Each structure stands twice: as structure tokens, then as C-alpha cells.
């Protein structure tokens, strides 16, 4: 009998990617696993693989704010529409706009990005439950940086 945990499945996925496996189907007692890598990616993956090899190499450092990869699981990100400083509350003594587990509506203010001394209220573009807040209060964020993970509903 085969028993996987999530980490192991992720490892399998990586291994598929590394070895150009386009499809994996596994059925065993109490488990069925079917993995397909997008066929569009076939040619692209070879090329991108080289590219990403390159981009990951070189010296230490890099992007000011670390990008998180988009999830497969149907979750989505609220991303920063501008460069600035991320605040979770309208003022230091106010409660946060949202907490993990909160339900947010489309258009609801979820945080503030301060840019050039201006406080810009950032509204959610989706409706759903906040699963994770990715940036700490008061930290700098860049354009397009994921701020929160939301599970749309």
C-alpha cells in the first residue's frame, strides 16, 4: 500500500518537471493520483527551464520582496497595485482591516499602501475567505507583490 503526504506529492511534481514527465497516473488501495503537466508547456518548459536555471543562479540576494508562486488549489492573491509600505490598519491603534479567516467582499478595503506620504486604500477584487496574510505590517512591497491569499467563494 502506498501512502503519500502532501510534501511527497509535491516532490513527485517537482520530479516530473525535472524529468519532463507529462503525465502520471497512480492507483492503489485507497489512493488515486493523476497528474498531468500542461501540454502547452511542453516546448516552453524546456526553454523556461534553462531560463529559470539561469535566473536562480548567480550570487545571493535578489528581489526586494520575494514572490510567492501562484497556487494550483484555486486560491487567489490580492496583489499590491503599487510600490509602497504595507499597513494592515488605518492607524497604529486601530484594529486591522482583515484577519485570517475573515470573509471579504469585492470592493472591501483590506489594507493600506503608503506611497509618497499618501495612504492608498486597497480594495479586494475578489470575494472569499482570507487564508493567509503574506506581508507583515509596515513592510515595503513592490508592484504586483502578493499581499494576501484568498479562497474565492
Amino acid at each position, binding site marked *: 500500500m502506498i501512502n503519500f503526504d502532501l510534501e511527497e506529492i509535491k516532490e513527485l511534481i517537482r520530479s516530473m518537471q525535472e524529468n519532463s514527465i507529462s503525465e502520471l497516473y497512480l492507483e492503489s488501495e485507497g489512493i488515486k493520483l493523476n497528474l498531468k503537466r500542461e501540454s502547452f508547456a511542453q516546448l516552453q518548459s524546456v526553454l523556461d527551464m534553462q531560463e529559470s536555471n539561469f535566473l536562480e543562479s548567480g550570487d545571493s540576494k535578489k528581489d526586494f520582496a520575494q514572490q510567492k508562486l501562484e497556487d494550483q488549489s484555486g486560491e487567489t492573491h490580492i496583489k499590491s497595485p503599487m510600490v509602497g509600505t504595507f499597513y494592515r490598519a488605518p492607524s497604529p491603534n486601530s484594529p486591522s482591516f482583515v484577519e485570517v479567516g475573515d470573509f471579504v467582499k469585492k470592493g472591501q478595503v483590506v489594507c493600506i499602501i503608503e506611497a*509618497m506620504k499618501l495612504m492608498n486604500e486597497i480594495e479586494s477584487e475578489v470575494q472569499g475567505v482570507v487564508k493567509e496574510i503574506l506581508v507583515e505590517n509596515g513592510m515595503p512591497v513592490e*508592484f504586483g507583490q502578493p499581499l494576501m491569499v484568498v479562497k474565492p467563494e
Partner: protein
Amino acid sequence: MKRILISNRGEIALRLIRAFREFGYFSVLAYSEADRSSLPVKLSDAAICIGPPSAKGSYLNIPAIISAIEITGCDAVHPGYGFLAESPQFARVCKDAGIIFIGPSPEAMEKVGDKSVARSVAMSAGVPVVPGSTGFVSKEDLLRLAKEIGFPLILKASAGGGGKGMRIVQSFKELDDSFDTASNEALTAFGNSNLYLEKYVSEPRHIEIQFARDKFGNCISLFERECSIQRKHQKLIEESPSCAISPKLRKVLSDSALAIANQVGYVGVGTAEFLVTPEEMFYFIEINARIQVEHPVTEMVTGVDLVELQLIIAEDRPIPFSQEDVKITGHAIECRINAEDPRNNFCPSPGRVDQYIPPGGPGIRCDSHLYSGFKVVPYYDSLIAKVISYAPTRERAINRMERALYEMTIEGISTTIDFHREVLKNAFFRKGDYYTNFVQRRMGIK
């Protein structure tokens, strides 16, 4: 000055990153989403995404850049060339926010930035300008002025550059129509329909003087660059020294550039552009208040690092040498390699570079952000590499450049490499017998 934000991309961003690393400054690159996998992002000390691919949302987005400077703790900004490099507004916002803008003051930039103002400044500094209208010309004055100056004439956008809003007028009957088209073009391109009128010099050389002036008033000429190889007013090949400039004319042009720089209280490095006729008549055209694409040819022949000079001047330090120390040794040529298809009217050719092998070996400098697998994006200008050759003589510099372009490999996109090789083979080019109409007249290319 310790941490400098670079609000630019491509080869000039790389040039600045290299200089900052060598001279001990921390570099922060502000980049657009389209440039995420670029070499400057990889090689800067830190990088921050400031906006979407459109230049308006990123490299021209002043609030985003200022915000990036603030959150990354930079104390200075280098705008490179293009984008906000010559925006007095940006320079002023920086100044007000206590950020060192590496370039001249907003006031100086305003004076030299408007061509008709620059013209008056030159005249009051005693530098000859092309005969033409003082300030912009109204449709009413057009005929009178045209009679006064004589044909051929040229109409130019007051706020313009790069050939937009420009018309050559050969006779009275073309005058009105040309005025209307040019003014419309100027309005579309620069939001300003004002035109001025000038005598059209038909076979001039385009010569520019590189100068530097510090806040103590030390003003130094780094001599000329010959930039007459152009297509549609876009420079393609530059060299220094120019075959057409006698030592006497070099001195006169240098003095003229310095006089204008002094007149406007210019602090920084800059370029004064002149038209020079075969008879050694010369006319001032404009000041470029920035580092120029073609600055490496001056660096090769003078041994002066122009970006270092910008840093020195921006830190209120005096220029560390005097005019007597500056000598031209040898000869340098630059070819600007664009991602364009010369067989298809120089149409931009973005796409993936499958294989890139830059030229190397003795006397070759290559400034390029390419690598094998890099994708040239369609959002910005098409310059992908500058190849600079340096040798003891012009002939050897040309031979060396031919050798370099022969070995340079860029696969997957069209480039202008072969076009440059044709120019280098041309007998008129080799003799140094060329003017701004070379590409049209000698290569048969519009």
C-alpha cells in the same frame, strides 16, 4: 551618497550597475514587470518592481519611482537616458523630497530643454545658431520669415526630438501644408503644437561636444563625437574623434559648449549638439542634459569614466582633472545594434534570443543586456547592444569593428548587425566623407 536607485532598464541600467559596483555604491534597480528576467535585475544589489510593462505605469511613473526610492532607503536616483532623464518635473520632485537627482538642476534642465529657449541662451552666449525664428513661429509670420531666411527651410517641434514634428520645406508652395502636418504631429507627440523655423542645412555633419561642469564652475570639454550616421534622425554609428574637425574647430566648438553650460549654470555632464558644414561653419542645435547612449566612444579615447564623473559632480566634489589633462588618444567607434529588421523598413523585431555570442577580444567593448534565452520585449526602444571598437587609428578601429560584427551572433530575432557591416564597407564611410544624409544618399535607405 550611498544607495542609488536606477530608474531605467536595458544596457544603460547595466552600465550604471557596473559603475556603482566598481565605485562602491549600492544599486537598487526599479523595473517594470516586463523586465523581471533581465540581466540588470539579476546584477543589481537589489531590485524592485515598480509597475506594469507600459512605460507610463513604470519608468515614467514618478510617484512609483519616488515611493520605490523611499521604501528602499535610497538617497539618490540615476535616470539613465530617455524616460525621465530630462524631465525637470522629476528632478524637481526629487529635489523637494531630498533625493539627489544625478543630473543637472531642474532650472538648468528647463532652460536647455526647450529648444527655442536654448537657442536664445546660445545666442546670448555668442554661439552661432542656425538662422531662423526667435521662439516659435505663428502661421501669420511664416511667409515673411521664410522669405527672410531663404529655402530650404526646416520646421521643428519646439518641444520635440527624435524626428517627430519635423518637416523640410523646399519652396513656398509646400509651406502651409508642411506647417499643418508638423504642428499636428508635434501636438500628438509632445502635447505641444509649437513649431520653429530654421534654415535647412542640407549636408551637415552632426557633431556633439561632451562637457562636464561641477558646482564650483569648473567646466571641461571632453571633445567631440561624430554622429552623422543617422537614419530618420536616429543615430546609428558614432565615433571620436571626427575626421572633419580640425584642432582649431575642436577648440571653438568646445569653447561654445562651455559658454552655454556656464550661461545656464549647468552642473553635471552634458552634450552640446552642433551642425557643421563642409566649410567648417557651425551652428548650435541643442543641449542633451543626460548621459548619452554614445558616451562610451568618449570614454575610450579620453580614458575618462563619464558615469564616475556624474557621481563626483552629484556629490558636490570638484572635477578631479583639468582641461589640459584631457587628450584624445586613438580612435573609437560605436555601432548601436537594434532589434530591427533592416530588410523590412527597420521594423522592430522583439522575441526570444536563442543564441547570443557577444564579440570579444582586444579593443572591443560590448555594452548589452542580452543573454541566450532572453526575450526582447516590445514595450521599449529597440537598442539591444552597443559595440565599441578602439584602436590606434580610425582605419584599424573600423577593421576591428568589422571583425567584431562578423563574430557577433544574435539568433532568433532580426538585428541591424548586417546593416552596420554594410556601412563599414562603404567607401565614403571609410574615407570619412559623410554627412547626416549618408544613409539615404550612400546606402539608398529612406
